[in-house]
């Protein structure tokens, strides 16, 4: 009797492992996240565009000539090939400003997610590991923050701090942490009661070692998934703040700021508000798709049933 028959006789539980099985399984997993792949590809393209902005943008985003003001896109009557998406109210190239604006949006959101994630992760670990009154306080704070509209807290805080890129990062960071804390705390409480944590403790590991070597690695995936989805959320919120004039200040190009400026042209130049909004939508969509894909790969428990 060959090995294969022997294995078959035992039943499906001991299916023979062929050498390429794991590779094939990995490929299956990747195929299931096609959306994630498309999203990641789009994210790479967008990041590339903004990274190489100085070489890709046809014009200086800060300088325009008044004679070129409010030109329509190149394919419309009166458009010029020199300005593919037309020009704004003071003659600056819309495409160049979109490319540079993406830089600002991405940098702000990624930094803000870093702040929110770091704060949320530390508080969640602390609350979940030590419990007691600190846990109660932190959980109550999370409750407060999640009950109340995030956007209103962000607006009120930035109005007091004053609008600037740094303050947008701070405000998004300090209003965005609770979701991380909630997830990390719940997971820490669960992990802490498991045997491997007790085993580590029995072997004489210090609390710091348990947290860093045993708990943290088990939390990273969940945090990465939330963080990737948060980047998209923050891009949208940052643009709203800038749209209201409370975020990135002119003349620095930003998608929200452009949308706010171009709102005045909604009656006669529909294309102007269309472009920056499309940029926000496409970027947020790409990041969300990537985040959903990451979740399917990294966090199988919360996978779409």
């Amino acid at each position, binding site marked *: 009797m060959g090995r294969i028959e022997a294995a078959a006789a035992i039943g499906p539980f001991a299916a023979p492992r062929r050498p390429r099985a794991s590779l094939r399984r990995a490929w299956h997993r990747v195929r299931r996240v096609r959306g994630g792949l498309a999203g990641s590809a789009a994210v790479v393209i967008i990041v590339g565009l903004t990274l190489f902005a100085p070489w890709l943008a046809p014009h200086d985003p800060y300088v325009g000539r008044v004679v070129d003001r409010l030109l329509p896109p190149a394919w419309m009557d009166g458009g010029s090939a020199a300005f593919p998406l037309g020009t704004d109210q003071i003659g600056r190239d819309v495409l160049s400003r979109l490319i540079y604006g993406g830089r600002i949006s991405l940098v702000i959101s990624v930094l803000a997610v870093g702040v929110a994630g770091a704060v949320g992760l530390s508080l969640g670990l602390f609350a979940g590991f030590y419990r007691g009154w600190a846990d109660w306080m932190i959980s109550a704070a999370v409750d407060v923050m999640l009950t109340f509209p995030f956007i209103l807290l962000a607006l009120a805080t930035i109005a007091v701090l004053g609008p600037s890129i740094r303050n947008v990062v701070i405000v998004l960071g300090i209003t965005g942490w609770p979701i991380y804390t909630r997830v990390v705390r719940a997971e820490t409480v669960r992990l802490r009661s498991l045997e491997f944590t007790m085993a580590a403790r029995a072997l004489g590991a210090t609390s710091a070692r348990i947290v860093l070597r045993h708990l943290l690695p088990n939390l990273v995936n969940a945090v990465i998934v939330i963080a990737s989805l948060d980047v998209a959320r923050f891009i949208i919120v940052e643009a709203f703040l800038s749209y209201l004039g409370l975020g990135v200040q002119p003349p620095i190009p930003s998608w929200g700021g452009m949308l706010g400026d171009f709102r005045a042209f909604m009656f006669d130049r529909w294309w102007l*508000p269309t472009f920056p909004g499309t940029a926000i939508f496409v970027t947020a969509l790409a990041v969300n798709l990537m985040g959903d894909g990451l979740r399917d790969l990294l966090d199988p428990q*919360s996978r779409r049933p």
Partner: protein
Amino acid sequence: MAKLPRARGGRGRAVSLPARAACNLSRALVVLFGISLITFVISHVIGDPLAVLLPLDAPQATRAVYRHEMGFDQPVGIQYLRFAADVVRGRFGDSFLVKKPALALITERIPRTLLLAAAGMGVALAVAFPLGILAGARRRSFADSASIVLAVAGAAIPIYWLGLMLQILLGVHLHWLPPSGYGSWRHLVLPAFSLGVFLAPVTMRLVRSGMIEALAQDYVRTARAKGMPEGAVLLRHALRNMLIPVLTVLGLQFGQLMGGAIITETVFSWPGVASLVVQAIQNSDFPVTQAAVMTLAVIILSVNLTVDTLVGALDPRTRA
């Protein structure tokens, strides 16, 4: 991502209605205290109310006099207590912009915000329930794919931009609806639709996962085994059981609904509380900002409280 709570009362125990209400009420009070603390810190500790009250070139002496008169030279704790006492009595002072009590400005606008919120929620439910039920009942069908597209695209679309695009297309170019403002039901259509798009993805995901969970239960198998038509199984058994956790989560997300209303009201110049807050924030009108934040907090918490208490009470399993 949203996980549905089990039909619950505490940790799976059946809890009587008064006990449940008391527990929720104490939680609401803690949250209210927290929000008042945040409002106070933002306006009095990070920000300086005097900076807005006095002209920029006011001499130091005048500043000192005002600071003393308004009590801003007292210890922070005392200032908070005075602030809290005013809040409890509904005294927020007069708006800096319009010489009217801040609270009066807000209360006259509350019905309009609630109208918009209800209409937006209606749109979201009208889309989310049929699609979510179909998607949950027929996995990997066309409805399921459509629901995934809606969920992913809906979560990525900035609704302030969607609103702007709708204004341009339907308001400016086609003249079907007024692009913004307040008045007839025609003014309500675009803002309600935008708000609906904001809420639909989350709601739909909740309905879909609730449906999937309910359909996996034994009572569904029993219903099918006794030859019940599939439609009746879905609507009478699965849907009814799923409603309780879904409605509870929706109630708890009322704050997010208000967040969406803030954005929608701003874009469509809808004269509700939310657009008033944005104006007040932009103009550093502290009394109105504080009054609006606290009023919104009370509204949100009352909705959370009512939904969480009553919806739970509707479920016979949680009755003691």
